[in-house]
């Protein structure tokens, strides 16, 4: 029960002495809003990308795992296994740097699903969905924003690799193209994780599922060992694994002996992933609520 007599605060009267400057500002703000024309799909998506970038700006620590983990992997693999696998760490670095590049960026893609899952629990999603904008814009924008993350992870790995003595016979152009290819593939892969992000109940479930899928794909690839040294059933799997194709194409670009066939295969696989999972994500997103 709310008592009317005991507390003076409860006796409200709309015309009670309120600083009129505030209500004037309020009225001015209310009446001055004319509706601009609706933004196009791309413009809306870019605005959501901007949202993602601002969040990185506010909490730069979230980039730590994007940067530290690849560094650890590269150092560990090179100096721990280099001697045993290739006879020398220098030679092994040539072999695994493109693989670590792929691995680091692909693991970062899981984050897209985790972030979307977290976002969906928040009230702001209701506002986005009640706006007259291209419906997939928040998703496309978020994944676009995530490519910034991929680019950062890729840059860290490549710079460290060069410092450690990686010999890029593909030249700067080859290395840059390799990075673009990997980031582009990760963009496509993100859509599988955003799908997972909308299917799972909690962010940690999304993370676990993502890693469970990625670990076998990365380790059962040509990332760390020559497939010809493997038992034949495993070798067949490794050779069919899209991650192997990506690593082969990346090695080609960085090492200066790329083949259009390798690159075309990777682009085709990326296109298929996007064509299947981007619409699936959008459909799940629309149905949520």
């Amino acid at each position, binding site marked *: 029960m709310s008592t*009317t007599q005991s*507390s003076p605060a409860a006796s409200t009267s709309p015309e009670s002495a309120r600083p009129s400057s505030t209500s004037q500002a309020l009225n001015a703000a209310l009446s001055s809003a004319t509706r601009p024309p609706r933004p196009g799909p791309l413009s809306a998506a870019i*605005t959501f990308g*901007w*949202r993602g970038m601002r969040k990185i700006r506010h909490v730069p620590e979230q980039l730590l795992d994007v940067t530290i983990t690849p560094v650890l992997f590269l150092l560990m693999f090179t100096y721990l296994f280099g001697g045993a696998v290739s006879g020398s760490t220098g030679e092994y670095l040539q072999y695994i740097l493109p693989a670590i590049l792929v691995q680091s960026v692909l693991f970062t893609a899981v984050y897209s699903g985790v972030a979307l899952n977290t976002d969906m629990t928040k009230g702001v999603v*209701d506002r986005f*969905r*009640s706006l007259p904008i291209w419906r997939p814009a928040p998703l496309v924008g978020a994944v676009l924003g995530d490519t910034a993350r991929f680019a950062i992870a890729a840059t860290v790995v490549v710079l460290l690799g060069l410092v450690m003595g990686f010999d890029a016979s593909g030249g700067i152009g080859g290395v840059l193209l390799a990075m673009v290819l990997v980031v582009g593939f990760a963009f496509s892969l993100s859509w599988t994780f955003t799908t997972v992000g909308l299917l799972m109940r909690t962010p940690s479930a999304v993370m676990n599922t993502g890693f469970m899928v990625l670990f076998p794909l990365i380790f059962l690839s040509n990332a760390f060992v020559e497939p010809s040294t493997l038992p034949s059933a495993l070798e067949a799997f490794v050779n069919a694994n899209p991650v192997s194709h990506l690593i082969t194409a990346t090695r080609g670009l960085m090492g200066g002996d790329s083949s259009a066939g390798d690159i075309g295969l990777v682009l085709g696989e990326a296109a298929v992933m996007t064509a299947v999972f981007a619409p699936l994500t959008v459909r799940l997103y629309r149905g949520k609520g």
Partner: protein
Amino acid sequence: MTSPLAIEANGLVKTFGDTRAVDGVDLEVARGVVYGVLGPNGAGKTTTIRMLATLLRPDGGSARVLGHDIVSEADDVRGLVSLTGQLASVDDDLTGRENLILLGRLLGFATKQARVRADELLVAFGLQDAAGRLVKNYSGGMRRRLDLAASIVVTPELMFLDEPTTGLDPRSRNQVWDIIRALVGLGTTVLLCTQYLDEADQLADRIAVIDSGKVIAEGTPAQLKASVGQGALHVRLLDPERRDDAARLLAGTLDAEPQLEADPAALSIRIEDAERAAEAVAELSRADLGLAGFSLSQPSLDEVFLALTGHPAEDAETDVEVAA
């Protein structure tokens, strides 16, 4: 094409598994008014609002918002309304200013205009000092004000407000009420969900009371309150021993059954009008029973429900459609 009604819902139904969250809701909301939807936890208020704001597809029935069908013309509806959800619909991980710029740009302003508009709103809502702070560090009242500001980056024709003052202190609540009044003053229609009779009474022109997904009463606040009386008179005595005497006296003057409260010196009684309550207090004082204090309280939502569901409810519930 322009319908005189802002909202016209017929037999809206939404089920979640076995729960019929909304079970045949009819609403008619005129343009330019504040329409209150009053109901306890789990009544189906949020679900109703989410269907009307095109966030959820109804499982049955239909509705038009500002003349547009909420399913087949959802995009037109979205262009005319704005939503302030029950969980504040702002982004915690951005600053207040960034939130408003984000919405301005999403609504079609160029970056520069969006910034100007954001600053204008921040001043109008008294948030200029907190503009650069992350929203997760805002107080509840500040979040709500930002939320409302975000809803009027472009003035909507219809605004959905889902429990905008739940959890706010009286001062913040009054600020939110003032904002709502100012909006309505400029011609925006407001659909306001609330658990507080007091709030609906302060703001709404008409009220629908919903319970278990059904509208159980509809009318002006005065009509609604008339069905529950004026509230209650609470009396506290200096000496608990005299409580029975006081109860007898009050029962005689006010013609109702007094309720003894947990406090052994306190009792309360339903009243029909304030005049007679004043007389009863005077009587108590004349009888020299040792009055320690008294107060009047408004009927609570509980009492409204008791009254509404205690009455034969046929008139309110008969024509609820059993939609698929």
